[in-house]
């Protein structure tokens, strides 16, 4: 404990240097704007910042991207509450309670509750991240390939079953992503797979091109087909934030801690990020909260549940990334990309090889959450003003930034062609009801899954039961099975409940 605290103190000293602070603030503002603009998701915001990190030191790069990631979970709340426009999918629940409060003339209070939830969720998640990571890393050192495969499989299953929509098409999307990840030279046998004689394909398809293409370009093409018909923003003159009183806060502490717990637990598993955390926490509050009948009609608990869980989920996802080297979400996958670009491999060894960097990053998350709330409080009006920018202009600029992001991977125009191809694939998938997140996470986690699976098979002479015989991987595999059965059993339970309401 003392060691962790002294490392954290050193981390604060490094994070508080002028250059790191400036980078942190830039990341926060970029993340807030990414969260606010409906055509720009928080993942896209983090992706678009990646090329800017090339000349930075590793720590600075991670500070920038993590700040954007955390701030992106908060920025979209403004437009959800004020204008009924969700900046991010995670802020859809805020439409129900936040906007309802705005219609009652309590917009300032709704913004205040959101700020309180984001700040509390972020700080508690930071504490958990700080004090859990190193002990978890020590446990993770005992993990071997069966455990890693089981954890990755859990992540892939969660992203399909918890992501919503058709599970069948989610699995198909995931399989496509896993297939994309097989292109290139195989790690274990050195065989060329699906390279079609191309030197560039021999190096594989970089997941950044898949991510930028499918998420960013695909989304812009979809919105272009809709004519960039975003809603105009009105009534900007009376926007302010009113922080709740201590008496009001005391009444909602149960909801707050429950939601933070849900956000942290859900994001502790790979593949389920802020969106899942936000909806699950809101659902739990609606089912079991003290004022469940008020949820959806302008209750602060509705705002707190989704926002606190969304911001708290950043902590769990970062634990996964740093300790296991497995990204917990698409946004943390970009952060993983930044680590790899700078030659740093996250994983349990990172606490031995880059201890100072890790605690500087932890410290920057604390500072980031506090500064995010300050910037959100003071800057809500100018930040929301970015909505005035015509969507055609912002989308065109984003396309150019996507081009640069894809080009800078290997300084080769072929990666840009790949990005455009995946953009068109992403658009078609969106149009025909195939979710994109499993495709992207499949392409990111596919190599990890295959490498750990094949190495296990080599080590244990093709005995697949080893995944169930080892205690940790056995438990995780049971969770995989449960998570895979949820979409099958849930409709059956619902039918029974409807048939027997008592």
């Amino acid at each position, binding site marked *: 404990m003392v060691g962790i605290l002294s490392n954290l103190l050193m981390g604060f000293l490094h994070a508080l240097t002028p250059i790191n602070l400036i980078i942190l603030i830039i990341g926060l503002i970029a993340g807030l704007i990414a969260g606010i603009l409906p055509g720009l998701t928080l993942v896209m915001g983090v992706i678009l910042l990646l090329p800017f990190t090339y000349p930075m030191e590793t720590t600075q790069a991670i500070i920038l991207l993590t700040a954007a990631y955390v701030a992106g979970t908060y920025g979209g709340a403004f437009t959800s509450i004020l204008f009924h426009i969700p900046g991010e999918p995670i802020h859809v629940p805020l439409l129900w309670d936040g906007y309802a409060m705005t219609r009652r003339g309590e917009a300032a209070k709704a913004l205040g509750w959101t700020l309180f939830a984001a700040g509390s969720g972020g700080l508690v998640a930071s504490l958990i991240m700080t004090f859990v990571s190193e002990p978890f890393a020590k446990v993770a050192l005992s993990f071997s390939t069966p455990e890693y495969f089981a954890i990755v499989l859990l992540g892939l299953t969660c992203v399909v079953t918890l992501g919503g929509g058709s599970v069948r098409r989610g699995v198909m999307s995931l399989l496509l992503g896993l297939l994309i990840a097989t292109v290139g030279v195989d790690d274990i046998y050195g065989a060329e797979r699906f390279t079609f004689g191309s030197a560039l394909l021999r190096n594989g398809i970089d997941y950044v091109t898949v991510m930028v293409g499918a998420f960013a370009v695909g989304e812009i093409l979809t919105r272009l087909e809709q004519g960039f018909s975003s809603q105009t923003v009105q009534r900007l003159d009376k926007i302010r934030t009113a922080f709740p009183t201590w008496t009001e806060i005391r009444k909602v502490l149960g909801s707050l801690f429950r939601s933070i717990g849900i956000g942290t637990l859900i994001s502790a598993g790979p593949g389920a990020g802020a969106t899942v955390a936000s909806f699950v926490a809101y659902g739990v509050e609606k089912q079991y909260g003290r004022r469940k009948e008020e949820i959806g009609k302008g209750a602060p608990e509705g705002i707190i549940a989704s926002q606190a869980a969304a911001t708290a989920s950043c902590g769990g996802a970062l634990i996964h990334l740093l300790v296991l080297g497995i990204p917990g979400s698409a946004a943390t996958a970009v952060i993983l990309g930044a680590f790899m670009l700078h030659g740093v491999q996250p994983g349990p060894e990172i606490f031995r090889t880059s201890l100072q960097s890790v605690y500087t990053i932890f410290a920057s998350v604390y500072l980031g959450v506090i500064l995010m709330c300050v910037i959100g409080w003071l800057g809500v009006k100018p930040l929301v003003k970015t909505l005035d920018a015509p969507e055609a202009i912002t989308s*065109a600029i984003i396309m150019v930034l996507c081009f640069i992001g894809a080009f800078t991977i290997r300084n080769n125009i072929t990666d840009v062609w790949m990005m455009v191809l995946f953009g068109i694939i992403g658009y078609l998938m969106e149009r025909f009801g195939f979710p994109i997140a499993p495709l992207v996470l499949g392409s990111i986690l596919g190599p990890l899954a295959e490498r750990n699976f094949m190495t296990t098979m080599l080590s244990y002479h093709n005995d697949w039961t080893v995944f169930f015989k080892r205690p940790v991987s056995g438990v995780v595999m049971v969770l995989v099975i449960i998570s895979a059965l949820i979409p099958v059993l849930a409709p059956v339970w619902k039918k029974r409940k409807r048939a027997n309401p008592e």
Partner: protein
Amino acid sequence: MKGVFRQPGRIVFDAFLFLVSVYLYLLATQFIYVVTPGQLGPDFWPKIILIFLMGLSLYDLVATFWEQPIAPQKEGEAALEKSYPGLLIIGCLLTIGYVYLVPYLGFFLTTFLYLIAFIYTGRYRKRIGVIISTSLLTALLVIIIFVKLVYVSLPPGTGVFAEVTFILYRLLGIR
């Protein structure tokens, strides 16, 4: 989405996916590697994926014939009255043209032209001056940030276009 024809498109998509899976499976049987008895080989993992993909795409294709068209599921988005497939096609062609022309015309010039065309296609058409100045400023800013500050080597173009790019770089103090 209103006005979007999902069922025939989805059937074609599923059929295409199935055929591609079959083709790739056949390719996977021809991977060249040193066979070691008792080991799964580099073709095992892709083959498993492709078998599942073939099965699911066929199942989805058959199921789509029997399903009713599905209502839009995205929450929080207003129901769309119109779609502009023409804009989409133009946008795709512009983007493909942009990527094709960048190595020849250079990044700055192609980006400037692309931005103008894409913004106009995106239905922002009232203020041509704003479009041109925004496009010029963006192209310049991108060059300054990425070439001068971040040291990304963006394509300068070929022939006379490369000369134009290098003159611009000299004016911006980029060496």
